[in-house]
């Protein structure tokens, strides 16, 4: 089982490496057929079947923050986020608003729409790795690529929110 700490460390390491194309490509050379991916010794999921424990609300917010901002959530923000979440009865609505705020903060590294459309396969693979800690299978790539190609207004921001709201993202 992958612990929360390991997941956080993985994200930090992932983005540290992904900032440098050369090192990223070296990392990917260790990948064999969507099986085990390693960054600093951390494992990725072989498939989503392994994910069967739902994240707590605190885990979800903390991991989401780390995932998007490549840093751990500051304690002050965590306290405010917790209060905000308590102050809204519909927790799904609260989480969606918090995610909305994160994605639109201007501090999240999100590919531009033109970057995404220049290499959709690459965008899909990186997004799966970023949020799901695994590579997409061929069918998943096909489906999402078709969505992107068929809808010129489907932006990376919207796709990121869909990933963060998906059932798979809420499990580990």
């Amino acid at each position: 089982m992958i612990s929360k700490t390991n997941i956080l460390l993985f994200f930090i390491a992932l983005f540290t490496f992904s900032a440098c194309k050369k090192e990223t490509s070296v990392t990917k050379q260790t990948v064999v057929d969507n099986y085990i991916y390693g960054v600093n010794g951390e494992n990725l999921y072989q498939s989503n079947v392994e994910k069967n424990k739902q994240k707590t609300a605190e885990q979800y917010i903390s991991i989401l923050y780390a995932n998007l901002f490549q840093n751990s959530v500051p304690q002050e923000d965590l306290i405010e986020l917790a209060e905000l979440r308590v102050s809204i009865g519909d927790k799904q609505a609260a989480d969606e608003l918090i995610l909305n705020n994160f994605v639109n903060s201007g501090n999240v590294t999100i590919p531009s729409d033109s970057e995404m459309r220049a290499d959709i396969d690459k965008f899909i693979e990186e997004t799966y790795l970023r949020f799901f800690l695994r590579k997409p299978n061929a069918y998943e790539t096909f489906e999402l690529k078709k969505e992107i190609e068929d809808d010129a207004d489907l932006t990376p921001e919207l796709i990121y929110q869909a990933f963060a709201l998906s059932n798979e993202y809420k499990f580990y």
Partner: protein
Amino acid sequence: MKRRKFIKKAALTTASTIAAPYILPAGRLFAPTGARVANHVVFMLFAGGIRQQESVDQQYLANQGLPTEGNLMLNMLEGAPPSNNLLFNLWSPVNQPLTQSGTLFKEVEYESGPTGHYNGHTVAMTGNYTATGLNLNINPEYPTVFEYYRKHSDPAKSAINAWWISEGLGPYPSLNYSRDSNYGAQYGANYLRPASLFGDAGTQLANAITYQPDDVQRINRVKDLLDKNFHNTAEDLPGIHNTPENREAIKNFILDLQDQGQNGSLEVATPGNNYNLLTGDLINISAAWQVLDEFSPELTVINSINLDVCHDNFSAYLDFLHRADYGIGWLWNKIQNHPTLANDTILICMPEHGRNLDSNNLTDQNGLRAYDHTGDTNSRRVFTLVVGPPDKVKQGQVFGMQGNPAAESIDVIPTIAHILGFYEDIPFNSLPGRVLTEAFV
């Protein structure tokens, strides 16, 4: 693409038949199942612990050794304000006293259980006395009025129709549904603590934007695609759930509420719409009005709590009493000018409990003694005011006097059930209180 926008007013339409109560074969004087007195109820839990002496008895400073009496609740009660020894500026009332538009149960008994704020709230919102004395952050034992309403209304009501809006956090967010296995979150109310949205916590939504419906559809379409390829679902978040459409409306409402607060366009319950005069209670009432204006819920419960300052500051307690009264008058005025709510809303006001007869050892800056609420007879004395249109609520009546209470704290929930037409559908023996039938035409 994405952009913040003011959401359209989408007041929920309600279509139902108003029916007067009739005498059942069993001899009960309640409306038949489904028949309603009115389609909207606002229950103002005038909370924080309010003594009869300073509220309905209008004794002002008389119990502090100063010979000045007078009415601080000019929006709710008839009576002249104090003419001297004023501790603060009085605000002119918004309306004629609400007692002229309803029935005052001047003496109401909080019969048993600890006189704590959380317990007082649970008694008022569940219609059952409980022995819980601590401010436990758990859902109450007995079903709340929201659960009775949502489960027993026909047709069933969605959560967008029921709101619990509190001034404080602590245990209060837990009062939107109970632990009762026959009810629970699936019948709970939407909960909101507006002060958090306008405070530091609210800054965590500073960059959130309102999405257009087509962008929401795009997010959901991709989410559905992802969910289709995963074997587990994460729909079991604790708490109440809204339909996707209502959830989207609530999110937009929250962002819009914040926008209005930030740009100064939010209407607030102060004279001249002056933000500098806001108290926590008035922020809560102001935001509650926005909920009422936007969603026209059928059942709304709002509280105040600032008056609890009476533990160590009697002067501030009097001030907060006066301000909260203003907020209630302001709210009723807004309701009477709303296309859906006007003439179809009944407002019920009641403190969650009183305060002690004898003061504690603390005095404030004016040398006035403070009061706790430790369960003496005086702290079990409250009042209940039922306000509504003259064709629904009897106007100008007063019931009860000290030593001869006309009702109990647990009577409000049966009364709300009666107004909204589901009282007869609640399982027998669930609610020990009675319907305050004498208040209705």
